[in-house]
């Protein structure tokens, strides 16, 4: 069975500092990996996704993630965060099942302080 573990429930960081949100997954099949962001009282917005190819994936708003198959990780990074990046971030995995259901982690709250 597939599962996702987000290693930090909360990550406080000062504005303009770099940040890394950690995500590990388990799967016995090929995986597709995603990061979503959720602002208060809103739905999910896709930041980036890994389907195949280059292991370094660039997304919106300056975020990027690196797929590491040997460590089964897909950590999200941003070199310099802004106050507006304060939100809940979800890592998700989906196997090659055809119907494409997503399995989400518990989420990481990114708190950017001035």
């Amino acid at each position, binding site marked *: 069975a597939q599962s*996702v573990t987000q290693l930090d429930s909360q990550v406080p960081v000062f504005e303009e500092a770099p940040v890394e949100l950690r995500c590990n997954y388990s799967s016995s099949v090929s995986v*597709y990996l*995603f990061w*979503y962001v959720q602002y208060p*009282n*809103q*739905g*999910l*917005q*896709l930041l980036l*996704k890994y*389907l195949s190819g280059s292991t370094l994936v660039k997304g919106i708003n300056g975020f990027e993630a690196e797929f590491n198959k040997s460590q089964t990780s897909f950590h999200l990074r941003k070199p310099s965060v802004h106050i507006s990046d304060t939100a809940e971030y*979800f890592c*998700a995995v*989906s196997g090659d*099942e055809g*119907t*494409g*259901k*997503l*399995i*989400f*982690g*518990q*989420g990481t709250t990114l708190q950017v302080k001035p």
Partner: protein
Amino acid sequence: DAGVTQSPTHLIKTRGQQVTLRCSPKSGHDTVSWYQQALGQGPQFIFQYYEEEERQRGNFPDRFSGHQFPNYSSELNVNALLLGDSALYLCASSLQGAHYGYTFGSGTRLTVV
């Protein structure tokens, strides 16, 4: 171009009642998936509809049922509501064959009292 539209945005129901939530997919999308997001948790997959049929189902009881209409819109029905059904219900639409191009709606916040 309208994205995914969900209605209502908020809903309060009493235990034992039934509720229907609605979703209109993004223009051009033909597949609708429903997720339940409890407070402080990640979304959990309920089921997915394509061509008016349930294609895959998550670990949810039969009290949760759905429907997809010819115009691709969808409904999520929950019978015999429990306090534990209180959550944000998210609808995501996509196009079959377009790999994981999901668009999520803003959700319906259901409170069961």
